């Protein structure tokens, strides 16, 4: 039996839809949603103040895009995401590797890490606002924090799950440290780390939007927040859709990278 194009299979049970051509299939769910939504508005079930039809939201999106407002806000948000993600990923990798490779650093630093890990990253928002004000530093730091934890954890687990025997073989062959790193450790841990990075970037996006909702003068979250304060439902919906599409694309790109980088595993 042919599978339904948008059947609700769990993402893990099937390889990321690569051979099927990911785009057309990915477009079915949003299109169905828009159709239902437009119909609901046409029936007059909801007044204009409560729900505007997708056609109006599309016009608003076009207006925001034409005025350059959308480009500016999305650009600002993405720049924050990129800088924060880069910083968080690098420190997370370094921390995870340092704690996994030496028993002393593990004993010294891992308990503190586990302690801090219990705090939802969103709960750090008020502290960071007090520390850094509502400037760029605050938003980049929150993104870096949201990235750091999953990446550090994935790196740590990835290295820890490398079989001991591999290290022993390396010792027998007197493998030098750079070789040990590049020829054994990196290939063995790349899948776990990539998964960590993917989880991290989608979380970082959520936390960034939350940070911008709470305190910002620009960015996609701020666009939504202003829309809410001015009761502009179309602007809020435009923001919801934009943030959804960006989150979706980030996840998809990360999955594609992951599938590509771990292809050798299936061979």
């Amino acid at each position, binding site marked *: 039996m042919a599978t339904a194009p*948008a059947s609700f299979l769990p993402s893990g049970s099937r390889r990321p839809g690569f051979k099927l051509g990911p785009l057309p299939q990915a477009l079915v*769910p949003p299109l*169905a949603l828009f159709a239902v939504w437009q119909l609901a508005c046409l029936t007059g079930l909801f007044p204009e103040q409560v729900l505007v039809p997708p056609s109006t939201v599309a016009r608003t999106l076009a207006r925001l895009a034409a005025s350059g407002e959308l480009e500016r806000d999305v650009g600002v948000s993405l720049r924050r995401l990129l800088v924060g993600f880069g910083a968080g990923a690098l420190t997370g990798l370094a921390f995870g590797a340092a704690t996994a490779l030496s028993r002393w650093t593990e*004993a*010294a630093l891992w308990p503190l890490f586990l302690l801090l890990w219990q705090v939802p990253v*969103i709960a750090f928002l*008020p502290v960071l606002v007090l520390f850094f004000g509502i400037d760029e530093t605050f938003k980049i730091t929150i993104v870096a924090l949201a990235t750091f934890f999953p990446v550090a954890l994935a790196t740590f687990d990835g290295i820890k799950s490398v079989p001991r025997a591999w290290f022993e073989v390396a010792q027998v062959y007197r493998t030098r440290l750079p070789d040990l790193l590049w020829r054994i450790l990196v290939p063995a841990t790349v899948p776990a780390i990539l998964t960590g990075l993917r989880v991290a970037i989608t979380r970082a996006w959520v936390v960034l939007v939350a940070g911008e909702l709470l305190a910002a003068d620009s960015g996609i979250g701020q666009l939504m927040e202003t829309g809410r304060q001015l*009761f502009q439902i179309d602007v809020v919906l435009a923001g919801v859709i934009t943030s959804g599409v960006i989150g979706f694309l980030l996840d998809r790109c990360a999955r594609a990278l992951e599938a590509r980088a771990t292809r050798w595993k299936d061979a």
Partner: protein
Amino acid sequence: MSLLDHKPARFAVGLVAPALLLAWWQWQASRGGSNAVAFASLSTVGGAARELIVNGTLLADAAATLQRAFTGLGIGATLGIALGIAMAMWPLLDRLLGPLLNALRQVPMIGWLPLIGLWFGSDEGSELIVICLSAFFPAMLNAHAGVAQVERRYLEVGQIYGFSASQRFRRILLPAAMPMLLTGLTQSLAFAWIAAIAAELLMGASVGLGVTMQQAQTQQRLDIILVTIAVTAAIGFAINQLVYRIRSSLLAWQAPAQ
């Protein structure tokens, strides 16, 4: 044999970094000036903790947030599990609702906050909706996957025994899907807890840990924020431990994993 093989020694080594962090913090706080606002001294934080405990704020906040999270979890996860199972059993329903839910799932939960605030106002109800939404999706996805992945031969055996639809559900599908259902519930619980804090923080209605955090932020009371963060972390940790225990005792009949 290294020093690290002794448990107490290992524990002591683990305490060094937090102790250094606290010492550095205290030193920053004692330098005064602009630092004093950013770094609340340990005694100030301790004082705030005592104050919040004595006047009952902390307990009331924790209870309110927990209640909110669990109410949201109850509603969201129940709907999610019911819908997930139903969609796995009836492909037509899957095809009708699947695309819709898949599209909605792409938006980060936080992204719904302004919209929900606009529709329902910034009060208790809106916060609950956000929590329900967060709890709904993991429960539904895992329930769906759990039932969809039940091995065919189990169902065939049921057919041979002439099981009725309800017997088939109670004696085959439900037990076989149980591990996935519990995984979904665990994820839902974690999501509901974080969503409760986030919703309180961003909407700030009535009482709760997030509300207190948000108010403390506007009053520049870092000491209060730190106390609420510590309580949030402790509760999150306790919930995780509890769920882990319940899960292992419920799944004790299974062969131990690995």
